[in-house]
């Protein structure tokens, strides 16, 4: 037995590699998925551009500001997709009893599930997001410093952890009920959309929800205050601009605890 970090990194690569090799037999679909992802992103940016030829600003936010916000969210989303997409159709895993085979391995189940279906085409999403983000960074005239660079990286990682926690939550629902499709859609799609726009456009109740219950505002809005040098905390304390890692860790711990409970209630499948 060796160092757990070495062991699990190696295992992650091996399991992910095995899945990628299985998928390679469907090369066409890989290319197609990449193209679909890139086209989807491009359409959205185009739409934003069209929108802003009509309105100069939205609540004092210019096109580069919004693009910046959007791309920060989509970076977090892309990172989450690469690491955690396996939980997307977790209800299938549960209903078909595929989790049985996972539970008899001497490896933490969540690790095993995450490692064994890494979809490479989500890397193309990452790439598009990086391009858009760099453009927005430049257009919004933010000066790049080491501090800002680090802050951005921490923000993106925290944001992806927050979205990952939502995935985990929907997977837990799947464990308990054998269904999760709609919940995943609502949590993930809603959080992605909500992260793309300044929360100042929403009424107070929604803003509170997006801050304290489903802390999507920490994925983009509050950190963007810092990076864009804005001061629209809408009654929230200004230190929320640094709050993303705290929100991410807190949410993740809660969702992981629920997941553990869900695992104890896993029913497997009849037959």
């Amino acid at each position, binding site marked *: 037995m060796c160092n757990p970090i070495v062991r699990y990194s190696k295992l992650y690569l091996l399991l992910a590699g095995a899945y990628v090799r299985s*998928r390679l037999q469907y090369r066409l679909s890989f290319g197609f998925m990449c193209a679909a992802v890139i086209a989807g992103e491009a359409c959205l940016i185009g739409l934003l551009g069209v929108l802003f030829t009509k309105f100069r600003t939205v609540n004092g936010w210019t096109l580069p500001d919004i693009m910046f916000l959007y791309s920060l969210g989509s970076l977090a989303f892309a990172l989450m997709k690469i690491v955690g997409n396996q939980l997307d159709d977790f209800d299938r895993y549960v209903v078909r009893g595929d989790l049985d*085979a996972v539970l*008899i391995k*001497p490896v933490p189940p969540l690790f095993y599930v995450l490692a064994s279906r890494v979809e490479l085409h989500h890397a193309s999403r990452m790439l598009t997001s990086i391009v858009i983000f760099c453009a927005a960074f430049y257009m919004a005239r933010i000066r790049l410093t080491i501090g800002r660079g680090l802050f951005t990286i921490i923000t993106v990682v925290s944001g992806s952890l927050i979205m990952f926690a939502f995935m985990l939550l929907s997977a837990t629902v799947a464990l308990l*009920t054998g269904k999760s499709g709609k919940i995943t859609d609502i949590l993930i799609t809603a959080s992605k959309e909500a992260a793309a726009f300044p929360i100042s456009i929403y009424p107070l109740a929604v803003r509170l929800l997006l801050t304290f219950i489903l802390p999507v505002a920490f994925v983009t809005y509050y950190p963007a205050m810092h990076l864009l040098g804005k001061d629209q905390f809408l009654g929230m304390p200004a230190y929320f601009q640094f709050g993303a890692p705290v929100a991410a860790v807190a949410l993740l711990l809660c969702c992981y605890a629920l997941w553990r409970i869900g695992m104890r209630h896993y*029913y497997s499948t009849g037959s």
Partner: protein
Amino acid sequence: MSIIKVEHLCKQFKVRERPAGFWRGLGGLFSRTHHIIQAVDDVNFTLQRGDMVGYIGANGAGKSTTIKMLTGILVPTSGKIDVMGLTPYQHRRQYTRRIGVVFGQRTQLWWDLPVMDSFELLKHIYEIPERTYKQNLAFFSELLQLDCLTSMPVRTLSLGERMRCDLTAALLHNPEILYLDEPTIGLDVVAKEQVRQFLQRVNAERQVTVILTTHDLNDVEKICQRLLIIDTGRIIYDGGIDALKQRYGRTRMLIVDLARAYSKIQIENVDVIRREGNRIWLAFDRDTISASEVITRVTAHYEIQDLTISEPEIEEIVRKIYQSGMTD
């Protein structure tokens, strides 16, 4: 020394009557409209190291549920499982290193990859030392004739070939216990026999404790010293195969297709246990009456089209056990 100790083991499944639609489905999470299936009901047994035990029962008897609790997949509703001093679902990571599991219904191999890739992955997952791995692979390859299979993608294998690979996969890390859930399901006679002989050798030569579930009595007839028969979640028989045959296995079954419908069928010393249209199932005790005698009597009174004799099935033995339980 006992290796597996199961006490008052129960598993209930709450089956929700889940309303259709998302919101109502979500409400169903908290609602009380469910019924309870008692899949395993107060099961007790102790196994010794090196035992080879058949766990048999009809479909839906609770075999898989028991195996899933023994392997740590399911958490028991109540009762205790102690395997080698561990509680399966609690000490999962430690425990699973020491057991091997085979599900006849689905493979654990990587479907789209060559068999060898699965073995290599398992080597890393179980941290099998290179030397052990090589030795085991050589041993099982020879025993199960895997040579020409290992380079083929799993999905291209026949059921029997896949089972041979699955058996190897479950044993590469030298488990002390091997659990098999319906390892012969769907296999042809030859492949079934091969699996049985293999299990026997693994048990004898490597001192692996084996517990296998099946609904096919032939599986356990020659290779298991001990049988546990489960029905609707309860153990109804625990003992040797010979004693079982002595007491209950003397029944034979004659399946007759009648040429036309008869309103009443009555033959001395023969039970009509089932009727479906013009087909009837006749059970008789071969100590009391011979098969040819039964056939003579049936053909004497009724016009028949076709007939077959069958060995006793697990369902029939279960029926007998209940019958004798009531008269005892």
